[in-house]
């Protein structure tokens, strides 16, 4: 169960940007999961089904409450647990880019944010994402592309706005 908890928790954390919120949402997703288990169709992949459940819950919850906040947790050592290889200058630059990406995620609409998180932060294949989002492959690809473009624009804007 811990592996599934980790996946849902990370998805919730990356989506909401708040550690506290992610813990609460993970718990709610698992509550729903236990309620929905009898309806699980064994011909489907369990992971995809769980992620679909989590995604629906997160987006619904986000739309319902907007989480009363636009600020994400500080991008701290928790998010960069893995040490970065390479020379210090590159590491520093990459670190800075990660921070900008993290802070810009909230500027995307919930659908786009979910697409870019699944593809780029979690490294899922387009086929898997299509299953999770229950969308045709072509739609997923174009949504990921649009989300990346939007993200790149916001990141550059932030970079330009900072001293």
């Amino acid at each position, binding site marked *: 169960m*811990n592996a599934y908890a*980790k996946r849902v928790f990370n998805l919730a954390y990356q989506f909401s940007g708040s550690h506290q919120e992610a*813990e609460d949402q*993970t*718990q709610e997703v698992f509550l729903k999961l*236990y309620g929905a288990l009898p309806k699980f169709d064994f011909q489907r992949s369990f992971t995809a089904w769980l992620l679909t459940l989590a995604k629906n819950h997160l987006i619904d919850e986000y739309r319902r409450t907007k989480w009363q906040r636009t600020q994400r947790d500080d991008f701290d050592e928790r*998010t960069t647990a893995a040490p970065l290889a390479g020379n210090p200058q590159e590491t520093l630059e990459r670190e800075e880019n990660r921070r900008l990406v993290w802070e810009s995620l909230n500027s995307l609409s919930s659908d786009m944010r979910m697409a870019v998180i699944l593809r780029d932060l979690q490294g899922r294949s387009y086929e898997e994402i299509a299953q999770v989002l229950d969308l045709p492959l072509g739609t997923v690809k174009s949504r990921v592309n649009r989300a990346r473009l939007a993200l*790149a*624009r916001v990141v550059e804007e932030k970079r330009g706005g900072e001293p």
Partner: protein
Amino acid sequence: MTCERPQELFSAYLEGTLDPALRRAVEDHLAACPDCQALLAGLRKIEAAVADWPELEPSQALLARLSAIPTARKKFRLVPDILLRPSLQPYFAGAAVLLVFVSFIFLAPQGRSFQKAVNRQVHLGWSAAERIYAKAGSVTERLGDYRDNLLGSLRTLNILKESETEK
């Protein structure tokens, strides 16, 4: 070429899944468009930044809360799980549609007015038959009158003839 179409292809371009002709078209556009060059450079930076994005371990407190869920749930179920299997859903849907049709026939107001219409037709048919019967009665009466008249005339004719022969 406007920037929109090449930008739609940027992800496929970066992932190397674009076919050669489109790839060349994107490169041609990039060579002439500084805005798209900057955007693509931004995408590359993001691509590098998000690679190996670290995953967090959920806290022990959260894991403890999660493993407490199954026992905390109520055991009582209103509907047995076997009835909630997805494979049964088409049958439930079919039964629902059937019930709707049955209710149209037995409960809907159209059903009652249908009955009324039938009753009315039967009533109309009955009264038409009665009228025909009454008409037929008057016709026989009139025919009887004609017959009496005719017989009367014949009789007077005979009397006249007899009186003439006596002369």
